[in-house]
């Protein structure tokens, strides 16, 4: 029988016992308070979903999830933490590549739903018998869209990519929206702060509308709760603090271009980055506006 297997890791065993009850039926549940034990389990057993705490004695959750990604790339990774600090959240994006970042105390319904979604995705990807992102390359030039009013960002991107990709620069939302409606974008590089305004909703909308597009946030804006929302609702693939370091930028851009190609070849992989709905009402309204604009532009293009 193919019940998905869930691995719960937390240094407080009462958390483990409590969580286990949520998954009493429908799952095989493995649990441990010891991160090293978790690593051993990941090596020896097929784990569909891992849910880890962040603050633990031997290693941080983000670190454990990074290791999980190496050992078992198909396992879906979820962080469940009572501490929301920025460094942890950044590590969760860049290293842990987590599917969701959840906070304690949690809502039972939400956790159940998230784990169920993750389990379904994992079952499908494991069944696909292919490790993610090693799909054959499409030998087509990738397009990168840089959305940042600060021109130095696009310069940096052009410099590191040379002519291995086509780099388009949009200094404002209107322009970016036009580009998105017209061509396929492999990687969207954006600052969440555009001329002093937070454009998280843009990233969230893009992921909803163009799930293949990988987004990289480059910013000096520091806000943990915004970042957590970007993880859950935009599945941003990378978060690089400004000022940008060229080698890191280059490495990550190449990785994301590859990931885009993999997702194009194996559409199933898209589901691994499916997003939670936008939670903030104001952002919902903004996202609606943006979607309207996108639709109109697409229609316009179709009729032209």
């Amino acid at each position, binding site marked *: 029988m193919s019940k998905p297997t869930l691995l719960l890791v937390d240094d407080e065993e009462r958390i483990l016992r409590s*969580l286990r009850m949520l998954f009493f039926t429908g799952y095989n549940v493995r649990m441990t308070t010891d991160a090293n034990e978790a690593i051993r389990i990941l090596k020896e057993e097929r784990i569909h979903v891992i849910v880890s705490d962040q*603050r633990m004695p031997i290693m941080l959750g983000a670190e454990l999830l990074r290791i999980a990604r190496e050992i078992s790339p198909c396992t879906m990774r979820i962080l469940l933490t009572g501490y929301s600090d920025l460094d942890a959240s950044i590590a969760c994006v860049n290293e842990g590549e987590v599917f969701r970042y959840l906070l304690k105390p949690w809502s039972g319904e939400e956790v159940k739903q998230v784990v169920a979604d993750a389990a379904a995705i994992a079952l499908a990807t494991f069944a696909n018998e292919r490790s993610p992102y090693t799909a054959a390359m499409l030998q087509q030039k990738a397009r990168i869209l840089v959305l940042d009013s600060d021109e130095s960002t696009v310069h940096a991107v052009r410099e590191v990519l040379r002519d291995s990709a086509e780099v388009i620069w949009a200094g404002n939302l209107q322009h970016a929206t036009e580009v998105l409606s017209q061509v396929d974008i492999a990687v969207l590089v954006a600052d969440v702060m555009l001329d002093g305004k937070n454009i998280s909703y843009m990233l969230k909308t893009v992921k909803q509308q163009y799930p293949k597009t990988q987004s990289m946030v480059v910013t000096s804006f520091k806000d943990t709760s915004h970042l957590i929302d970007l993880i859950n609702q935009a599945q941003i693939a990378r978060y690089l603090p400004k000022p940008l370091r060229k080698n890191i930028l280059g490495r990550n851009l190449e990785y994301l271009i590859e990931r885009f190609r993999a997702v194009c070849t194996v559409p199933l992989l898209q589901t691994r980055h499916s997003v939670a709905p936008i939670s903030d009402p104001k952002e919902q309204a903004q996202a609606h506006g943006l979607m309207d604009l996108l639709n109109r532009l697409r229609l316009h293009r179709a009729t032209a």
Partner: protein
Amino acid sequence: MHAARLIGKDIPSLTIALDPIPSHLPLEELADLFRHPAYAEVLSIPVVDDGKPVGMISRHRFTDIYLKRYGRELYGKQPVGNFANKSPLTVAYEQPLAEAAQHITGNMQLPLTEDFIITRNGKYLGIGFVMDLIKAMEMQMRADTEALDQAYSRLKSSQTALVQSEKMASLGQMVAGVAHEINTPLGYVQNNVTIGNELFGHVQNMFASYETLVDKMLDGQSSAEEVSAQIQQIAEMRAALSVNEMLGEMRGLMEDSLYGIGQISELVLNLKNFSRMDSAATDTVSLHDCIASALNIGRNILKNKVEIVRQFGDIPAIKCAPSQLNQVFLNLFTNAAQAIADHGRITIKTWHVNDAVHIEVADTGKGIPAENIARIFDPFFTTKAIGEGTGLGLSITYQIIQQHGGDIRVTSRVGEGTCFHIRLPASAAHHDAQLLAA
């Protein structure tokens, strides 16, 4: 020169209403005037025409002329105006003292041979003595210095207040840390209760089904089919949910929940005790309680990292401001934890000698380099990154210990660790509640 007079802090108080002379007055008349009691004290006499000062003639200048060969014969009949200094030192009646003093000292000739003229709206009003002006200025300066001193000490005490409020801010951070700490037990307690609630619903249904079955079997009216249908229904329910097993689990979860609630209440209680900001409140308490409270509040930064070794002696309860001493211990523990890179130990020792209680907090952290030791109690001295330390912890600690009539000392070895030693008077230590309210 002249008798001591009351000198004020402004030009009016320096003004001497001296009768001036007109410029046409023959020079020789000055000889009598300078000897006249009304002019006995002055260095110079103002020359005024139509109320307007036109010059100043000094004793010095006068004798100079008379000492010249035939000076008296040659010049005696000539008008004073010809010999007077046509641009005498002049200040206005309304001029601020400091400004006047600056003008006079900047322009006066040495040796000093003339006084200065005081005018009001351009009209002659009187003269003033340069020495008076300087004296007034000096007095003013002394007063200013005093005011400066006062302002300084006011500033210092308001800085103390500031320091305290900064500490409040970092207490705020601590509270945020504790809030996070609460999230763990809150997480499982809430979840357990939710699950329990759901399970309760299942159990109720199950129970109702059993009751129906029993009723059907006992009432003698139900058919065998009805009874077996009921049994079937129960069997299905049992297959769908292993209620029995879940009930067994639930027991454990209930115990966990009680434990978690205990944890939460302990944290909240500690937080309440800790942040009692009527910080002057004094009480007779055991320092061991203060230490326990600080350890509890600081758990967030200590756990997983620091082993606490308690070597508690038999110490008497002392009269003190507990919330302030809590803060002292928390500061020391925080510093120690921050000085420990990976894992380490904090040893807390207490003992009692005669009239004093001693507390030692020793860590196995990185130690304090000799060049910093003298500065660690200074406000705003910190070696920590922005956001990690404000450099106020130890200065507040120091202040609190002092207010308790005690002292605090430090010994440290780089690479080995640091030890803070506090001595507090055991009896009658506590003086003035007022003092502590700072």
